[in-house]
């Protein structure tokens, strides 16, 4: 089956900022994204764990969006701004998809 090249944006982000990242992606014309819950994490010297903190303030999520490179590029500037304030990191990779028109 013929596959087509697209890109996969993955943002590891504090849960409270997930809606903001979503709005940035929507604004950049990304056709869809999915948010996954995280369970625990480590960064620098601190750790967090979902069930261990009743305030849930440090919960992280992972946002995955499959999209055209152009849309991801359109989002990156604003995401950099977002990640300057909010806790998180992002990465982009190349993937192959079946129906390129969907993205």
């Amino acid at each position: 089956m013929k596959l087509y090249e697209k890109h996969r944006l993955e943002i590891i982000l504090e849960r409270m900022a997930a809606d903001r990242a979503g709005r940035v992606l929507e604004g950049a014309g990304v056709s869809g994204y999915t948010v996954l819950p995280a369970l625990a994490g480590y960064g620098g010297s601190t750790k967090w764990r979902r069930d261990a903190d009743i305030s849930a303030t440090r919960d992280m999520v992972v946002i995955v969006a499959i999209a055209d490179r152009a849309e991801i590029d359109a989002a990156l500037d604003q995401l950099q701004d977002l990640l300057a304030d909010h806790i998180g990191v992002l990465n982009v990779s190349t993937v192959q998809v079946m129906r390129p028109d969907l993205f």
Partner: protein
Amino acid sequence: MSMALDTLTSPIILFFALGLLAALARSEMTVPEAFAKGLAIYLMMAIGLKGGVEMAANPLTGEVIRAFGAGIVLSFVLPLVAFMALRLTSKIDRVDAAASAAHYGSISIVTFVAATEVVQAVGLMPGGHLVAVAAVMETPAIITALLLASQAGARKNVAGSQQGELFREVMLNASVVVLVGALIVGWIIGPEGFEPTKPFFVASFQGVLCLFLLDMGLSAGRGLRQGWRQLDAGAVTFGLYMPLISAGFASALCWVLALQPGDAALLITLAASASYIAVPAAMRLALPRAKPAIYLTLSLGVTFPFNLTFGIPLYLAMGQWVGA
């Protein structure tokens, strides 16, 4: 003295201590977040309903209105005091200080509930409207903190932020919706309509509280273990003396407004308590650069345990002393 001991040997305090010790001993045990959140909703429904039912039974007197006024004023003003205290006595920076101050102007509903038990145990009957006062005190502190932070230039619109999102987070969070909503429901249904739900919301309340406080102990203990390195001695001391300052302010106000002893004790407790769920969430949106390790460790790790054990008996004594 004996009452302080009674407080310290009540099941809820003991389960809190159990959780705290387990976390400090590095036990891996947890209460699942979904379950704990469900219990929190239950507790707020129960408190709101009871408060509303009591309010339905009692007329809205001038004292009720004065209590609301006092609560709002305290929530607006205490963050200022807290902010100055933190800046003077610790190395915490402006934005972190503003964020922490918001927590101290706002309230802890579990501290409120624990105080209610103690106040009722000595035969005082605080009014149901104190629940509404508690709900009303959640928010103003956040406004003060944002003003303090904006002076530091810390507030700007983060990418993707939306008109109204902070307002919704602050005014329509679970705690406000459930507390105020259940209060109104209780007020509408009155004692008679409340009756069939009492086995769940009244009889089971104490037990659920034990379970919830076990989880709070675990959270507080883990917060302490993770966060204490972020705090200098000045900050930790702040977590211990700030509730006393707040209690002092509130006592004065209660005395001026001639509130009854039971109501006074609870209002003092509310003033002395610090938020650890609603305000941290709001701060992540409004002041994302403020470090959660600081404000959570202070409010959940230092002030909450202090209030639960030593604070409440003291606030009761203060309420009895200044109360009309």
